[in-house]
């Protein structure tokens, strides 16, 4: 393996889980997220990992992945494929306690459901801020928009989710669930 390949492999091991997480939240589920993540890294590898300025690869990969995710969303193919369902059914659980696993699954589902309700640009901005801890300037670079738009989108996303969260809490409280 060449030294560039080694560097790429290290970058891949570091960023791949985070990118998958971002894509799952963008797409509202696991279906297609890993495919897109792999394709994004492949684009980076083809482009030439070392041709990008220092530290730029991370933003580049998120930019590309997000574009792929938008394509996927535009196609409307967000249903989980049969094969993914089968694999998921047989995936070994990392929670020894079924109750813990259920809670984790429930919370994941709630987060995905809430994020799905946001417009795509607000969703992208919020995820990059909360999960990748990018600055507003970095987020603006990835999304190709102005910093002031990022600022507004993140605030609106938070406000929307906050209101939904409160509505949900109220409905749970009233039904006794």
């Amino acid at each position, binding site marked *: 393996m060449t030294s560039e390949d080694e560097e790429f492999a290290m970058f891949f091991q570091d960023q791949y889980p985070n990118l998958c997480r971002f894509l799952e939240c963008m797409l509202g589920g696991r279906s297609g997220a890993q495919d897109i993540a792999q394709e994004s890294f492949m684009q980076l590898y083809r482009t030439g990992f070392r041709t990008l300025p220092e530290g730029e690869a991370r933003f580049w990969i998120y930019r590309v992945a997000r574009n792929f995710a938008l*394509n996927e969303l535009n196609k409307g193919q967000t249903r989980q494929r049969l094969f993914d369902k089968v694999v998921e059914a047989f995936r070994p659980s990392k929670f020894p306690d079924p109750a813990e696993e259920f809670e984790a699954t429930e919370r994941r589902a709630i987060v995905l459901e809430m994020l799905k309700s946001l417009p795509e640009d607000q969703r992208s901005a919020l995820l990059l801020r909360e999960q990748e801890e990018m600055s507003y300037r970095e987020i603006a670079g990835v999304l190709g928009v102005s910093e002031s738009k990022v600022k507004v989108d993140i605030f609106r996303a938070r406000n929307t989710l906050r209101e939904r969260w409160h509505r949900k809490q109220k409905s749970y409280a009233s039904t006794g669930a």
Partner: protein
Amino acid sequence: MSCDWTEKISLLIDGELGPEETAALQKHLRDCADCRSAQADFLLLRREIGSYESELDPIAQQQALQNIFASERAAQPDFTSLKNQRVAPSLPSLRERLFGGPRLSPALMAGFALLLIGTIVGLAVYLNSRRTTQSIAVSAPSGANTSENIATPRPQSSVSPRESVAVEKGNREMRVPSNNSVDGRINTPVALAADRKNERKRLLSVGRNGVERANDVARTAVRQSAPDESLAPAEPSYVAVSNTAPYVRVFDPAVSGTAQQRTTRHVEQAQVLLRSFRNTRLAARGPATDIAYDKKRSQKLLYQNIVLRREASKTGDVPVEKLLSSLEPILLDIANLPDRPARDDVRSIKERMQRKNIVAMLQVNSTGASRSY
């Protein structure tokens, strides 16, 4: 529920406020319950969203990395020169190459090929020189034939001084009865020149197709000398993809690895291609999407698929044969698309891929096969 300062709370928790604004907001928070509630809610959302974890399989992650490296290696065929040699993962030693194993080495086969080409060229030169000798030595039975045998001289510009002297000499001295010619033709100087020209063309065509012919010849020589079916030429075959495309190195089953390993690699590469094709964005308007890269890869994989499918059929590996048979029409369709295809064409292939669930089938096959190593 909302206050005018709520938006600044969002900037505060992101560290995007300056020191003076931060101080002012901190002061406001002491008095405003709504803003304190908003701050708590924003931080809760951050905790929930930030703690979301993808359930990633480490094996799948490694597989994804291997797929990336493999697809790039596979997607770089050798277009530059027919002289380029195949790159084997591990080259045998010189001794093994010359004398080792049940297969004849590349060196011996190249020797056979050169020997045969040399024989053909030597034979051609010999025949040519015989014809020249015969045509000069023989005389015509009667003077009346001389004028018939005299070829019309070519236009002055195309005839060199030496040739024009020879023609004149021929006119005066040469008598060639038709029954003495080698192939039944009248052997005049111009006819001889035409013979030489044709011979030159024939030899050039041998040279131009030398690689393909040499392989065929070598294969024939190998087959003749060793009837064992397991022997196969180690040199890769070159097949023209189209009139405009350069020669593409076809995957040679005898090159490297077991059949299972080769099939697994092929399936992984096909998987990557089909995923890439599946993710192709179709423009609603304007110029069609360029899929030249996918098309090239598909062409290469198609030839590999044909070879591996035949191998599987020969060895009686029915599941692999069925899988590759399902894959082949899709590769063919992608390979036959124009570089900028119509939306409907791409869509119909994608729909077929989805109906066959081909990507999932490939993934199951490649995961299962790689785990068995």
